[in-house]
């Protein structure tokens, strides 16, 4: 069925909307439903009734996406995972107000983590804000809000980044990272830059984008969008993480860096205007990798013979070090070393 003609699949952005009965009258639910007139709506008791069914096909579901509107009842904040970079922040959390992503990256851990390819949107953002505000009473918080999705890519639809920005404006002790592969330049016009909202662009060479990051904007589009944001005063982080191996990876990543050089030069900007950069090669937990390999049997990235180091699959140590060191050296010639983050807690 995977190779059924594309027109067999119900292909609009979302072909069906599942809605938890409890949040039917929530203003954000009503707002979202107005945007999708004429799409079948199915009432459900709990999002897990759809999202957690057994034996779902993530790949097929990505070709005919459903939107699930739900209310989060608990777990508004999670502590940052060891494989994630904390950028020197002691109180590192992430939150998940949307589950799943509209992009289709072959190596994405979400495929290993979630049983379904459908998109879950939790409409009760106010409860997230309350949970963060409570945590802020104890200590400053560094919060990644776009790990289990790509909120910037969904901004036009959900407006979540704008709401987080409004919240962060009132809480200087809160630093929010919005990680994205999108190239949504319109978001720069909808918000004011804040020092405590960091837009983190995951960048990959065009060859990797075409090979493994399906439905994502091109490398050039991402670079342009990131640089435009910087030009408008937004704090922008460039993430060369995950770096992915391909036969001529040095040349590919070298071209990517040159693309950024050119884009900055065109706007008469320098690397000093980049808030910081992160470097890391692909890594994923053993459990997620097992599922990912089953879901992506023909993917070069997932089928790479990684080494299992303490339950985390990663490139063989020599290759890992070679790739990361090369990138760090390249970046050191462009940006101060203090702005380069490459250690994660493994």
């Amino acid at each position, binding site marked *: *069925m995977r*190779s*059924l*003609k594309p*027109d*067999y*699949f*119900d*292909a609009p952005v979302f*072909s*069906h909307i*599942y809605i938890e009965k409890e949040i039917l009258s929530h203003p954000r639910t009503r707002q979202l439903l107005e945007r999708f007139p004429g799409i*079948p709506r*199915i009432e*459900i*008791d709990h999002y897990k*009734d*759809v999202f957690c*069914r*057994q*034996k*779902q*096909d993530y790949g*097929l*579901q990505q*070709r*005919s996406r*459903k939107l699930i509107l739900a209310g989060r009842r608990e777990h508004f904040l999670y502590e940052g995972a060891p494989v994630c970079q904390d950028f020197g922040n002691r109180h590192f959390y992430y939150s998940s107000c949307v589950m799943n992503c509209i992009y289709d990256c072959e190596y994405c851990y979400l495929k290993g983590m979630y049983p379904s390819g459908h998109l879950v949107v939790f409409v009760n953002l106010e409860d997230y804000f309350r949970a963060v505000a409570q945590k802020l009473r104890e200590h400053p918080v560094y919060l990644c809000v776009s790990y289990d999705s790509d909120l910037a890519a969904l901004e036009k639809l959900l407006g979540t980044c704008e709401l987080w920005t409004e919240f962060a404006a009132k809480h200087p002790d809160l630093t929010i990272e919005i990680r994205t592969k999108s190239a949504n330049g319109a978001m720069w016009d909808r918000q004011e830059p804040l020092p405590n909202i960091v837009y983190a662009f995951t960048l990959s060479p065009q060859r990797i984008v075409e090979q493994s990051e399906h439905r994502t904007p091109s490398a050039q589009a991402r670079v342009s969008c990131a640089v435009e944001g910087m030009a408008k005063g937004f704090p922008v982080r460039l993430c060369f993480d995950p770096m992915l*191996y391909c*036969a001529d990876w040095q040349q590919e990543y070298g071209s990517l860096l040159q693309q950024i050089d050119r884009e900055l030069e065109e706007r008469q900007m320098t690397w000093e205007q980049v808030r910081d950069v992160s470097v890391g090669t692909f890594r994923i937990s053993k459990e997620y990798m097992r599922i990912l390999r089953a879901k992506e049997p*023909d*993917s*070069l990235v997932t*089928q*790479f*013979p990684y080494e299992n180091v303490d339950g985390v699959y990663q*490139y*063989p140590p*020599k*290759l890992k070090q070679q790739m990361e060191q090369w990138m760090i050296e390249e970046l050191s010639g462009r940006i101060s070393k203090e702005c380069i983050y490459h250690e994660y807690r493994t």
Partner: protein
Amino acid sequence: MIHIVCALYQEAHFLITHYQLKKRNDFHRLQVFENTERGLRVLVTGVGMLRAAMAVSIATERLKVAEHDLLWNIGSCAASFEASPGTVFLCNKLIEEPTGCTFYPDILYRHPFEERAVVSRMTPMTGEPEPGLLYDMEASGVYQAGISDYGPHRMLFIKVVSDYGKGTPDATALQCLMDEAGETILPFLERFLSFHAGQEQSATGQTEEEWEQRLVRDLHCSVTMEHELMQLLRYCALADRNVRDELERDYGQGVLPCRSKREGKQYLEKLKAGLF
């Protein structure tokens, strides 16, 4: 293969005649009709969710389910809203009345039908039903019996309105109604059958598998080493890296087969290191 579950022969008649399905004589608790060339099999199960579930279980166990097989349920139903008799609906929600459990088949394909939720009951719908719903007696049984083999994305539930809870049509009228509805259902089914006809599973070549097994033996692989080796070979195949020639050369030079597990492990490490 597409397996279609119908409760009654009259509901399956349009499929049996259109595709010239032949009855199998080796099933006793259900009737099975099939045309293996077209990749279609119809199970006539008898009325009720338990019979439907039992039939799906028996058929699944005996006939084996291939990776791309589909399980459809086509049958008549009652409607608690205005809909002409013979209107075809695709069910996006199955509510099992006796237990209150709800199931959601994945609707992943374009289709020409209106969608509704269906309530599966133990007895035909009578009295004052909840408005806006369809009522049948099999869907939830088919779903539950099929879920572990087919998953929610390979099951479809197509229901044809035959009544409104105030008396059901007789056998002849039901067959006429379903035959007419078949004109809407058949083109949709045909799209899937055409696809399935062209979809032969490409099995891994026997020789390739034998060659890999020989390599496993000749490297004296442990289970972990075997996994590593297979992963390496899989990656090389995807990356168009021809390691087989290299290994054959080593066979020619007597480097392979290895003499011990230790030697095999060293060889595997060398092989990996040479690739990246």
